[in-house]
C-alpha cells in the first residue's frame, strides 16, 4: 500500500487546557481506504510517544518506510482498509510534521522552542476532532491507540461521547503511576541538563541536546521491554568486538568501554533516536502522559469519570508489560463495568513487555481482527 502524507491548516485558534491557545497551526495526517457513502466506516488512530501520522503502508519509492502499525492496519490486515477508512494524525507538539516546537511562533516570528505551549491529551483530542470536522466525518466507527494513544482513545469517549461508536484501547492506563512519572522525569532531566539544551531554545544556538535525548531514549527503551525478553535477546553476552580484541571470552576490565551486548544495543537505540527526535517534543509528550488523569476531576473516581462514555470498548493488555501493566487496563475495565458499558478485555500472554502492542503477536492481532470484523453498521 503506497501512501501519501497530507497537511491541514487551521487558522482559528485552538484553546488549550492550560488557558493558552494555538493559532495558525497545521496537522499532518494520512488516510487509508475509502470513506463510504454513509460516512460510517472511519477509524482514527492515535499515536504514542515517538510515532506519527505515518501509521501504515509505505511512501512511493521507499520500500522500507512501513508505518509504525503496519502489522495491524492495511488491506486484509486486522484493521482492514478494504472495509474501513483509517486516519492517522500527528499530534500538536510533535516533530513529524504537525505544528511543534521547531516551527515559527506566529506571535513572535521566532521558533517556538521552549515557548511551545504545554499540550494535553484532551487538547490533542480537540485538535483531532477539528480535523475530522474538516474531513466531513461526524462519527467514528472506532478510535484506536496503544499506550499514550490508548489514553487519547479513552479521552475521545469522554470528550466526544456521541462521536465514537467503539474504542480500542491497547496497553494503556487511566493515568500514570508515580513510578511511571519518575521514569519520565529521569528522561526529562537528562535532556534539560544537557549543556546543548539552552533552556529549550537550542535552535537559536545551532545545537541539538543529543546527549540528553540519547539517555532519555535509553531509559525509555528499558521500560518498554521485559526482563525476560532482554535476557533472551542479550543475556550477559559480550560484544563480538570485545571477544575479538581480547581473544578470550574475558572482560576488558575497563569502566568506560562498551562491553556487554545490552550496552551496545541501548547506545545504538539512543544514537538513532537523537538523530530524528526533538528534545522539546520529548518534554511535551512525556508531560502530556504525566497529566492525563480523567478521574482527577471526579475525586479520583474513575467509574464516575467514565459515566460519560457510551462507546463499546475493547481493551488489550500484555502480561509482561510493567510500564502499562494489565492491572491498569483492568481498572478501566472495572470502571466500564460499573457503568454497565459494553466491554471486552483480552490479556495477552506475551513476553515482549510494553513493546508487544507494536509487534506481530498472532493471538493479539486475532482478537483485534475479530473485534473489527464483528463491528456492525460499517457496511
Amino acid at each position, binding site marked *: 500500500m503506497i501512501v501519501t502524507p497530507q497537511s491541514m491548516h487551521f487558522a482559528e485558534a485552538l484553546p488549550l487546557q492550560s488557558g493558552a491557545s494555538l493559532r495558525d497551526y497545521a496537522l499532518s495526517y494520512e488516510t487509508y481506504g475509502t470513506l463510504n457513502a454513509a460516512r460510517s466506516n472511519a477509524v482514527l488512530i492515535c499515536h504514542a510517544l515517538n510515532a506519527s501520522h505515518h501509521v501504515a503502508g509505505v511512501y512511493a519509492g521507499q520500500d522500507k518506510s512501513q508505518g509504525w502499525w503496519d502489522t495491524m492496519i492495511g488491506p486484509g490486515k486486522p484493521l482492514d482498509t478494504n472495509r474501513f477508512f483509517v486516519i492517522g494524525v500527528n499530534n500538536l507538539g510533535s516533530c513529524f510534521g504537525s505544528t511543534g516546537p521547531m516551527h515559527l511562533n506566529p506571535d513572535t516570528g521566532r521558533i517556538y522552542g521552549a515557548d511551545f505551549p504545554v499540550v494535553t491529551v484532551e487538547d490533542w483530542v480537540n485538535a483531532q476532532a477539528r480535523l475530522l470536522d474538516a474531513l466531513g466525518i461526524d462519527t467514528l466507527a472506532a478510535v484506536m491507540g496503544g499506550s499514550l494513544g490508548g489514553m487519547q482513545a479513552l479521552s475521545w469517549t469522554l470528550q466526544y461521547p456521541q462521536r465514537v461508536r467503539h474504542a480500542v484501547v491497547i496497553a494503556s492506563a487511566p493515568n500514570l503511576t508515580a513510578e511511571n512519572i519518575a521514569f519520565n522525569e529521569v528522561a526529562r532531566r537528562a535532556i534539560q541538563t544537557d549543556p546543548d539544551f539552552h533552556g529549550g531554545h537550542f535552535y537559536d544556538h545551532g545545537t541539538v541536546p543529543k546527549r540528553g535525548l540519547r539517555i532519555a531514549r535509553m531509559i525509555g527503551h528499558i521500560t518498554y521491554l521485559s526482563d525476560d525478553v532482554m535476557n533472551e535477546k542479550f543475556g550477559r553476552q559480550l560484544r563480538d568486538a570485545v571477544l575479538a580484541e581480547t581473544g578470550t571470552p574475558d572482560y576488558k576490565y575497563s569502566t568506560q568501554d562498551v562491553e556487554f551486548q545490552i550496552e551496545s544495543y541501548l547506545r545504538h537505540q539512543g544514537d538513532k533516536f537523537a538523530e530524528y527526535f526533538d528534545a522539546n517534543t520529548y518534554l511535551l509528550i512525556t508531560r502530556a502522559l504525566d497529566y492525563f488523569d480523567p478521574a482527577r476531576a471526579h475525586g479520583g473516581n474513575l467509574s464516575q469519570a467514565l459515566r460519560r462514555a457510551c462507546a463499546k470498548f*475493547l481493551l488489550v493488555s500484555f502480561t509482561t508489560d510493567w510500564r502499562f501493566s494489565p492491572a491498569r487496563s*483492568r481498572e478501566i*475495565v*472495572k470502571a466500564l*463495568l*460499573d457503568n*454497565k458499558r*459494553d*466491554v*471486552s*478485555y*483480552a*490479556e*495477552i*500472554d506475551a513476553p515482549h513487555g510494553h513493546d508487544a502492542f507494536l509487534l506481530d503477536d498472532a*493471538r493479539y492481532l*486475532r*482478537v483485534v481482527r*475479530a*473485534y473489527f*470484523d*464483528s463491528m*456492525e453498521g460499517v457496511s
Partner: protein
Amino acid sequence: MSDLQIMHALAELVPAGSRVLDLGCGDGTMLAHLQRTRGCTGYGIEIADANVLACVERGVNVIQLNLDEGLSMFEDASFDVVLQIDTLQHLRNAEVMLRETVRVGRIGIVAFPNFAHWPNRLSILSGRMPVTRRLPYQWYDTPNIRVGTHADLGVLAERNGLKVLDSFGIQQGQTVRFLPNLLAGTSVYKLSR
C-alpha cells in the same frame, strides 16, 4: 457447555432482560443464546485465549480473567444472574467462588456434573473411576479438580448460609426432580444470599 439441551434447560432459569455474568463462559454460546432469545445483556469471564477470541467473534462481551483470582472487579449485586455452568469443578477456590457468585449476582445458577449419578456409583463399586458421556475423562487426565455430588453442593451451600431457591437434576435435557442425586448426570442449584 457442549450439550445444547442442558444449555436450553438452564436458559429457562434466567429471567428475560436479565443482566448476566457468565463465569467460565467458554465460547460464549450461552450468552449469545440469552441475548438473542431472552433479551439479556452481560459479560462472560474466560481464561482461555481461544474462548476469548470466539466470544469476540460472536460479539459477546468477554473479560479475560483467571477466576481463581476472584471477582474483586465486580461490585455486590451488580448482576441479576451469575452463571457458573460446568465451571465450579475446575476451580481451586470453589467454596469462595460459590460465595462470590451470590455476592455479585442477585441469583446464582450453578450447574456441574453430579458424581453420585447411578452409573458413576456402579463404576466406583466395580473399583474403577467412572468414564461417561458427562465425565468423559480418565482419572489421570481430567481437568475436573473438584468432584462432588448434588447432595454435596446442598451441604456446602447451607454451610455458607446461602439460600437454595431451587435445586434439581438434568438428565438427557429433562429436568429430574425425583432423586436427582441418583438419577441425574447434571446437578443444578439456584442460589441467593
